[in-house]
């Protein structure tokens, strides 16, 4: 499995392993349903590539992922986003060797570790009164995280 997908799946696994702290009902890649709230969704962002020196074909990749919180209420939204931020800031996140088996992913040993180098977060406002929105869209928060994946490619 290629690196970007491994990074996304490894981050999901890292959050699942720490879900006793987070308390999310669902950690996934797709928009949750109401019964799954509070939920954490990981989505692919953009990557940037920097040559390690002029003329070199070797580069360092920085990958941005979007971590979205869907909560039942405002307090849950704020608590969950703070817990996610704290976990990501205080830990190196293992990137696993992953292969796709029969309908499931098989996680091997960590091959690298990624670290947060930049992070911003804000509430998602869809421009409507909360009362006019479905619960799923009412209390959403986006954490925009850039990781250094700690290796030269």
């Amino acid at each position: 499995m290629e690196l970007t997908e491994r990074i996304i799946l490894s981050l999901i696994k890292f959050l699942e392993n720490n879900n006793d702290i987070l308390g999310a009902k669902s950690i996934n890649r797709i928009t949750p349903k109401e019964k799954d709230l509070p939920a954490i969704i990981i989505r692919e962002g953009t990557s940037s590539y920097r040559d390690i020196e002029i003329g070199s074909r070797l580069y360092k990749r920085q990958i941005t992922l979007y971590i979205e919180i869907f909560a039942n209420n405002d307090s849950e939204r704020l608590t969950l986003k703070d817990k996610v931020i704290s976990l990501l800031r205080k830990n190196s996140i293992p990137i696993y060797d992953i292969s796709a088996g029969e309908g499931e992913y098989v996680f091997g040993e960590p091959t690298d570790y990624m670290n947060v180098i930049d992070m911003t977060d804000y509430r998602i406002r869809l421009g409507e009164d909360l009362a006019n929105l479905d619960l799923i869209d009412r209390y959403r928060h986006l954490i925009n995280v850039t990781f250094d994946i700690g290796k030269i490619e």
Partner: protein
Amino acid sequence: MVRVVIKRYGKSPKELLLDLENQWFEFQAEALDVGKGLHNFVKEYIKSHAKRPGYKGKIANAISYDESIEMGKVSFAIGDIAQLDEKTDRAWRAVNWGSSHMVGRKLPVGYFRPGQAKPDRSHFREGRWYSTGGTMSKYAPYVKMPIPPMYFVEALITKGREAIFNLINKFLERVKSKK
């Protein structure tokens, strides 16, 4: 009795700053090129990430660009939230961050194109639902899937950071290598 001079890149910090200062007008011009490039980037990003065919560019065209040069200052601004809200009836927010607001709701009676008036799975994300003009079917579809997020604002921020980092780096390299 003792004089210590530390020079990096063969220059003192004062000399480096002076060289940077001398390139200010070129820096301003290149900063505005970066701004225009980013404006173009976000518009193309939206067009290339549109989920359905026949995108007419309503959101992309509503993203404004503004720049200004003043004494010792250069700035550019891409997109104006009030203007975007007005010109797109706030739809840019649902497109950027995704939304489930239509899930479970019934669309007005109309027809789907291309394909049969009543769409089937083989035309998933290939067409649009029209509820005016043309020959109406008796079918009114339920929306099952949420609008997926496009994150064009976030992509612009990431791209902008990278572009400004590269611009500053380029000028620092120029100053360092200047004899």
